[in-house]
């Protein structure tokens, strides 16, 4: 007996609930090993309208059960993405969403317009939660009005699914969640990285050249689970859980807590096959509990 893993997420039909998280799977062309049939979908590395160099090294520091990164959204810009990557995506059997970034709502809108309708691009994940850029990024993420403004700017320019990725660095994620829901988001992704720092005791200054970085990995999972659960309780649109998911059990905790799907990030660095392991692990868990489909999994989601 095989288990039905398909899910409907904010306007997209996915063959499975496990997606690759933005910035941890490149443009989907890099990692050779992955068993791609397990991939429910992929979110490409965050991109701006124009090319960006990114931050100087060091960009990475390991921390207890986690890591700090300050990549600075290095990327080739929209034109190269359309020219070099989208055509490849168009030939794949799973949807690719583009993680879009900007320094103003207008710029988010412009980028959306440039990418809308390009074959291979199945939807957008609005990044209003990147801690590693001077302008924009996090700023939009912790102000409900700004978050809504960005969401509207994107919503106006496309009929494709629009997901909004939330930051954990807020006092009440429900407020932001409701704001972007009313602004027209089809789904929410929670969470992006926390902000963290590490000091080099030889140089007496931060290890990262950007000084701070985004904290990801198993260390943040309990917070991510709580916040994605809070978001799911606050809105009616689906929530995709993200944060420290390394194995099937981790993923199932998010699904039980009310997420319709999940994204795997840092775990892919540890094992290029992490996504496949999570996908098949969920399937055998469901089977072992006698559930015929993902929809049968019991949920814990008291409404606010």
């Amino acid at each position, binding site marked *: 007996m095989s288990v039905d893993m398909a899910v409907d997420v904010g306007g997209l039909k996915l063959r499975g609930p496990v997606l690759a998280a933005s*910035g*941890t*799977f*490149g443009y989907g062309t*890099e*990692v*050779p090993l992955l068993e791609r049939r397990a991939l429910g979908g992929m979110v490409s*590395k965050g991109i701006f309208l124009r090319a960006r*160099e*990114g*931050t*100087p*090294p*060091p*960009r*990475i*520091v*390991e921390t207890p*059960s*986690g*890591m700090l*990164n300050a*990549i600075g959204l*290095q990327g080739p810009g929209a034109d190269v993405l359309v020219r070099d990557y989208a055509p490849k995506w168009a030939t794949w059997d799973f949807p690719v969403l583009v993680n879009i970034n900007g320094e103003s709502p207008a710029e988010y809108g412009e980028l959306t317009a440039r990418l809308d309708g390009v074959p291979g691009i199945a939807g957008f994940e609005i990044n209003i939660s990147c801690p590693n850029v001077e302008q924009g990024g996090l700023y939009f993420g912790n102000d409900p009005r700004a978050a809504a403004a960005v969401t509207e700017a994107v919503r106006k320019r496309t009929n494709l699914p629009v997901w909004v990725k939330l930051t954990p660095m807020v006092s009440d994620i429900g407020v932001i969640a409701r704001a972007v829901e009313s602004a027209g988001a089809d789904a929410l992704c929670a969470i992006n990285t926390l902000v963290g720092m590490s000091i*080099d005791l*030889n*140089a007496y200054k931060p290890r990262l050249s950007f000084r701070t970085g985004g904290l990801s*990995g*198993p260390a943040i999972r309990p917070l991510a689970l709580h916040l994605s659960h809070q978001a799911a309780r606050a809105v009616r649109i689906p929530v995709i859980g993200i944060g420290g998911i390394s194995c099937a059990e981790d993923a199932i905790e998010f699904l039980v807590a009310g997420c319709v799907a999940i994204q795997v990030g*840092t775990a*892919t*660095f*540890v*094992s*290029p096959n992490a996504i496949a392991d999570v996908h098949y692990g969920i399937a055998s868990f469901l089977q072992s509990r006698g559930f015929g489909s993902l929809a049968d999994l019991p949920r814990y989601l008291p409404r606010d």
Partner: protein
Amino acid sequence: MFVIGMRAPEIATSVRAGQFVNLGWEQGPLLRRPFSVYRADGDQVEVVLKAVGVGTSQLLGMRIGDRISCLGPLGRGFEMTGSRALLISGGLGVAPMLLAARDARAAGAQVTWVHGARTAADLCAEADGDDVLWATEDGSRGFRGTAVAAAPDAELVLACGPNRMLAAVAERWPNAQVAVETYMGCGTGVCLGCAVPLMRGGYDRACKEGPVYRAVDVEWAALPAHLPYAATA
């Protein structure tokens, strides 16, 4: 410096000098640790290392039969051209040089190896070439001074060691092929964590386009200096 070996037939037969493997293990640190392949012998892959932190300490504490997840071969290795090859290594920069000597000879080149270290005690015992020179900072063995200063001239120059040593190589041999060290997240090209600053501006990935670069192409001033290699030479 210590050498540890692991069974990895596919890697052992396909690896080229300058490529690396990314190692992970149960109860180890979260992220894998990259190591140049030092020797490839039958179905065995060997790496040479020194304890500089938690990962290397744990690796050196392993016992025969313990399991390591070994990902590779990764990155772009050295290109072998020309009939006289000069290998320059500093400290742990010795790591890719045994294979480099092997591949250079296989390509029909005459191999001269210059290895530099702080003291004679730090020198690698296994330096292997048709002609081997030593250089120590304190003069306790061979030439007193840097390996770069001690080296003769040559067409094909391959170097590995602390980034500041490679910067010196770039001065003298702009076209030298150098294997750089960076911190790495994934080792597979997806995280952009291993950024190498380029003279033409921008960054690329030590784990994909590198770790071997044309010496003049790298903006040495912008690379971190305090990496483990530096701690060992």
